[in-house]
């Protein structure tokens, strides 16, 4: 499919003219339905605005419900009102334009410059927002209009000849009069500083400032103004000073070796600067000529002095949410009513809008002040009929009712000549209703509420947020051909299958085109009517859709012909998408093959739980039925479970045995076990094996007969590919090499060294490292060498064999399995806990006797805590070791932990031996009461049990204080997980939004939608992690092994 490219989007404002033009009806009455139950003419549910009742016809287009899209109406507002969405922009526009002529307060030069900048940005297809922001800022700085009134320039070069302020004034006056500008005798010229005059420069030696001062005072005869500062701020090596208002300009020479100060009389002062100077701020100054009531402003640019006689600007103040005030020269505030604002905005000429980033054709600024309000079609705000027959209107309709009511009242009051105060109040109220109509969540405005007290959902609320139009209805929406129910396990189905309840299979359909080849089959399907492998609808050759009912199914089955379409039930072998939220990675949606089953749950092989992160404690999952051949093909090729055995996250299998699979296979392959034929067949039940091979020998069976036997390792070898060669150390490995001992390999007492030769398991026990999800070394090898199908079959076979094995021996973990003999208990108490407690007491004694030495970089207290934590930590570990010794490998808990099926030795330690130290933020619990954790202890007690050490095991039961400390530690863990999930969820969302349009192209580059390159090689190495060796590009050992033909020991 070719995608079309959007060339541009243009946003504009609706003009009053346009609103009236698109309006189908003027709405005057605030009521909706009359007593007769029919919509009122001129009302809000006007029949000309569209139909929502079945049977009625639209008075505008004549369409029935569903045909008529609805039509806009309008309300003529009695007085203009601010549009709440544009109040900020209005404020900026008022501040940037002349109050008299409406032009943007920029000198022609700047205007041209900014126009060019905007043009450049547009050409680059870049955002003009930044430039416009700058323009607003620049224009808002101006204090007089340079466009209205006259303005002229005077050559100021020789002005600098004169010395004194007065002389300049006189000279200026003279020049002005020469230019034909008449000034009265009382007119005077004043010069003042806009801002405090500040110069900074760096690293000027301290005494230089004194030197400068003396120059200024002694040599140039300036008087020192009292509040003039001349000080050096040490903090950032900056010399900051301000001198009196006589200084005109200070510049830095090109070589940056001296600064020069130019005075009003033309004299310059130069000061050498030894070190590099920083930037100098040229101060702002302004000259004003006050002549009777008029004030002129002068600006100097180079040697030219320009006199502006235009309107002076008045500061605009914006009071949230919708009021503007103007401050005049005397500091008095005057409110600008929406009418005033609108008038001012109207005055802004079209040409000037371009530099404010607007286009006069589609958005005149005065349109931001509403005079006409569009009324959305009723189809956009449908009313619902309650069971009681009562009508309940949409929130938007409610809001429109409010607006019309106040609007009417406003008009009536004004026509009746009501006092200004009342009018203003009503105006304010109208403004409130229209503001909340657009957005009911404005800061500082109480939200409009429903009678029940619920805030109304108005325009902005419909669009905003997760359930808003964008995120809720456009980016994501509810779909057809989908089902959702609880999942439950079924180890007997294939990992690539999903068990679908018949009820669901009968509801979801696949459309099949009837051809000569499937005519008979589909006819039979039709013939079953509503019974399971049947059909729900048929579409005749002429396109007419017919529902299959109990009455017509036989006839339809007969009639069925080529060219028809049948919407048949889901059957075994159909491909569907299966998904569990949160869909955090691509493996959260995979394609499964359907197995229709009785029951009401989706059945899922436990081996596919890890990619979905699913379990069966009530999890629900979604299923989507694919509707086109293309979709089905794509799903089969890309999304099938077997395609996704290797995770793209870490390049190792994510699907593999879990829980009982590991236990079962571990029990089966451990040691040497002999099985007679019957037992072997029992174990291989459901496993895809059809040749047992030669037995390993004969033995005397339980029935005292001499029968052939097969070993456990032999049985396991049957599911391995014949030419598989592999060796690795399993989960049970004690890491002898790391401990400095030698690895005994095949003779490992723990059977940790797995050796597979030509598809025969020679030594080692199969555990999590071999067939578990996330590790699965055998699965990994099979996937790479023998492909998807083989590895899928291998996982199926492994799990079935494992289940059969565990069923034979039986496996359970009960409360008595947490028992250790009294002897062991004593040992734990004495050797582990008491020892540690003694150590802690000794540490505390040493600390109190001030004999303790601090660890490097730590305080004494910190060192003490650290040492105590250490010894208590090892206490628990020691207790665990003792417990493990007494439990022995045959203990189901130990077995599960060691084989990697479930749980850890830590869990076992806590259950059987000692729970250990509880912590908050990685430290022992120390807060609560003054100087103690609980009133059970003495103040300043630093001993183990006073600071949250739990010496009991879960089996023993915790003492009240221990229980409390455990709850404290548990709370922290709970809060942490709650915080983490929400944070990582939001982070995920942001990442997805940022990366969703990036694509790896066939040339290996990563590009975004405009085809610009983001990365020249995907991941910089161009490797697909799901095709890599655990994230690495190559596995050198593996290559050597393949070349040399022997296992290289690692």
């Amino acid at each position, binding site marked *: 499919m070719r995608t079309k490219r959007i060339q541009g989007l243009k946003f504009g404002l609706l003009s009053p003219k346009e609103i009236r033009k698109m309006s189908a009806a003027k709405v005057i009455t605030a009521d909706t339905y009359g007593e007769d139950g029919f919509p009122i003419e001129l009302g809000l549910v006007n029949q000309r605005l569209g139909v929502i009742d079945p049977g009625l016809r639209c008075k505008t287009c004549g369409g029935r419900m569903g045909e008529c899209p609805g039509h806009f109406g309008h309300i003529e507002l009695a007085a203009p009102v601010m549009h709440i969405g544009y109040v900020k922009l209005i404020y900026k526009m008022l501040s940037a334009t002349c109050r008299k002529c409406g032009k943007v307060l920029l000198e022609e030069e700047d205007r041209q410059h900014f126009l060019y900048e905007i043009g450049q940005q547009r050409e680059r297809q870049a955002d003009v927002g930044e430039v416009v922001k700058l323009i607003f800022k620049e224009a808002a700085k101006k204090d007089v209009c340079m466009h209205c009134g006259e303005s002229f320039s005077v050559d100021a070069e020789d002005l600098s000849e004169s010395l004194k302020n007065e002389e300049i004034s006189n000279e200026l006056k003279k020049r002005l009069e020469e230019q034909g500008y008449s000034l009265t005798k009382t007119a005077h010229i004043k010069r003042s500083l806009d801002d405090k005059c500040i110069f900074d420069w760096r690293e000027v030696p301290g005494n230089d400032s004194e030197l400068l001062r003396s120059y200024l005072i002694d040599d140039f005869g300036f008087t020192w103004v009292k509040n003039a500062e001349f000080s050096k701020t040490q903090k950032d090596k900056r010399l900051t000073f301000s001198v009196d208002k006589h200084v005109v300009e200070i510049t830095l020479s090109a070589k940056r070796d001296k600064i020069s100060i130019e005075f009003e009389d033309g004299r310059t002062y130069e000061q050498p600067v030894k070190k590099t100077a920083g930037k100098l701020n040229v101060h702002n100054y302004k000259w004003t000529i006050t002549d009777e009531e008029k004030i002129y402003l002068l600006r100097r640019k180079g040697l030219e002095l320009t006199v502006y006689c235009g309107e002076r600007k008045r500061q605009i103040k914006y009071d949230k949410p919708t009021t503007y005030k103007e401050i005049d020269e005397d500091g008095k505030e005057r409110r600008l009513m929406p009418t005033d604002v609108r008038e001012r905005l109207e005055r802004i000429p079209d040409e000037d809008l371009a530099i404010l980033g607007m286009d006069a054709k589609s958005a005149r600024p005065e349109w931001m002040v509403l005079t006409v309000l569009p009324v959305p079609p009723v189809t956009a705000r449908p009313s619902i009929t309650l069971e009681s027959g009562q009508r309940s209107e949409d929130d938007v309709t409610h809001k429109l009712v409010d607006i019309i009511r106040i609007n009417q009242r406003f008009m009536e009051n004004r026509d009746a000549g009501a006092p200004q105060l009342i009018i203003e109040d009503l105006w304010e109220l109208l403004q409130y209703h229209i503001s909340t109509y657009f957005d009911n969540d404005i800061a500082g405005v109480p939200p409009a509420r429903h009678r029940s007290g619920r805030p109304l959902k108005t325009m902005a609320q419909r669009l905003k947020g997760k359930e808003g139009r964008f995120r809720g209805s456009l980016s994501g929406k509810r779909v057809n051909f989908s089902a959702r129910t609880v999942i439950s396990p079924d180890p007997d189905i294939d990992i690539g299958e999903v068990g679908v309840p018949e009820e669901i299979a009968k509801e979801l359909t696949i459309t099949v085109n009837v051809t000569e080849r499937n005519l008979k089959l589909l006819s039979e399907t039709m013939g079953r009517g509503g019974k399971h492998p049947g059909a729900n609808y048929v579409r005749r050759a002429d396109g007419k859709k017919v529902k299959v009912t109990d009455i017509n199914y036989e006839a339809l089955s007969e009639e069925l012909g080529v060219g028809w379409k049948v919407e048949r039930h889901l059957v075994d072998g159909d491909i569907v998408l299966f998904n569990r939220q949160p869909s955090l990675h691509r493996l959260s949606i995979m394609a499964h093959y359907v197995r229709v089953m009785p029951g009401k749950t989706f059945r899922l092989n436990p081996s596919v739980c890890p990619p979905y992160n699913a379990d069966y404690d009530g999890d629900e999952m979604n299923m989507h039925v694919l509707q086109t051949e293309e979709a089905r093909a794509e799903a089969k090729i890309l999304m099938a479970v077997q395609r996704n055995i290797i995770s793209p996250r870490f390049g190792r299998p994510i699907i593999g045995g879990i829980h009982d699979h590991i236990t079962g296979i571990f029990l089966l392959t451990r040691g040497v076990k002999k099985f007679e034929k019957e037992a072997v067949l029992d174990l291989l039940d459901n496993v895809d094996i059809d040749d047992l091979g030669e037995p390993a020998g004969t033995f005397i069976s339980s029935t005292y007969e001499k029968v052939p036997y097969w070993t456990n390792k032999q049985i396991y070898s049957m599911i391995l590919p014949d030419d598989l060669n592999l060796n690795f150390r399993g989960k049970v490995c004690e890491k002898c090499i790391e401990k400095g001992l030698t690895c005994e390999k095949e003779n490992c007492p723990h059977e940790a060294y797995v050796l597979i030769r030509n598809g025969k398991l020679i030594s080692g026990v199969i555990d999590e490292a071999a067939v578990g999800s996330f590790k699965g070394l055998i699965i990994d090898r099979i996937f790479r060498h023998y492909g998807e199908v083989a590895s899928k079959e291998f996982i199926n076979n492994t799990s079935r064999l494992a289940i059969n094995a565990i069923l034979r021996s039986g496996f359970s973990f009960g409360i008595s399995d947490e028992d250790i003999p009294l002897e062991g208990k004593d040992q734990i108490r004495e050797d582990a806990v008491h020892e540690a407690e003694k150590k802690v007491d000794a540490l505390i004694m040493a600390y109190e006797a001030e004999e303790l030495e601090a660890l490097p970089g730590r305080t004494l207290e910190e060192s003490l805590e650290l040492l105590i934590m250490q010894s208590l930590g090892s206490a628990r570990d020691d207790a665990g070791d003792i417990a493990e010794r007494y439990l022995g490998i045959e203990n189901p808990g130990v077995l599960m932990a060691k084989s990697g099926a479930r749980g850890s030795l830590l869990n076992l330690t806590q259950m059987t031996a000692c729970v250990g130290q509880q912590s908050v933020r990685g430290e022992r619990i120390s807060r609560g009461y003054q100087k103690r954790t609980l009133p059970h202890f003495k103040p300043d007690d630093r001993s183990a049990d006073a600071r949250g050490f739990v010496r009991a095991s879960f089996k023993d039961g915790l003492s009240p204080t221990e229980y409390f400390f455990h709850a404290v530690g548990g709370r922290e863990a709970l809060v942490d997980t709650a915080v983490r999930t929400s944070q990582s969820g939001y982070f995920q969302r942001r990442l997805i939004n940022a990366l969703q349009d990036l694509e790896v192209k066939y040339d290996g580059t990563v590009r975004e939608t405009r085809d*610009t*390159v983001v990365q020249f090689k995907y991941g*910089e190495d161009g490797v697909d992690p799901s095709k890599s060796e655990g994230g690495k590009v190559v596995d050198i050992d593996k290559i050597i092994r393949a070349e040399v033909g022997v296992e290289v020991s690692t």
Partner: protein
Amino acid sequence: MKKGNVSILEHESVPIHEIITNEDLNALLNKYKIRKEQLPKIKSTDPVIKEINAELGDVVEVRRSSRTAGTALSYRLVIK
């Protein structure tokens, strides 16, 4: 570079930037079948760009060490 200061080019976390020749640029553009504007960008105000005196419209080759590939090459167009 200001006197007495250390060149940022010598800093270990600043990857090597080099202006590439016209021939190399053409070869690059042909290889990926792209226009110059489709390359990743770098601002002319970037300290590295100032330091190696690259000009507007130049393309620089960035050679950085990569966790996955050892060293990785990237090309960036100098823009305003």
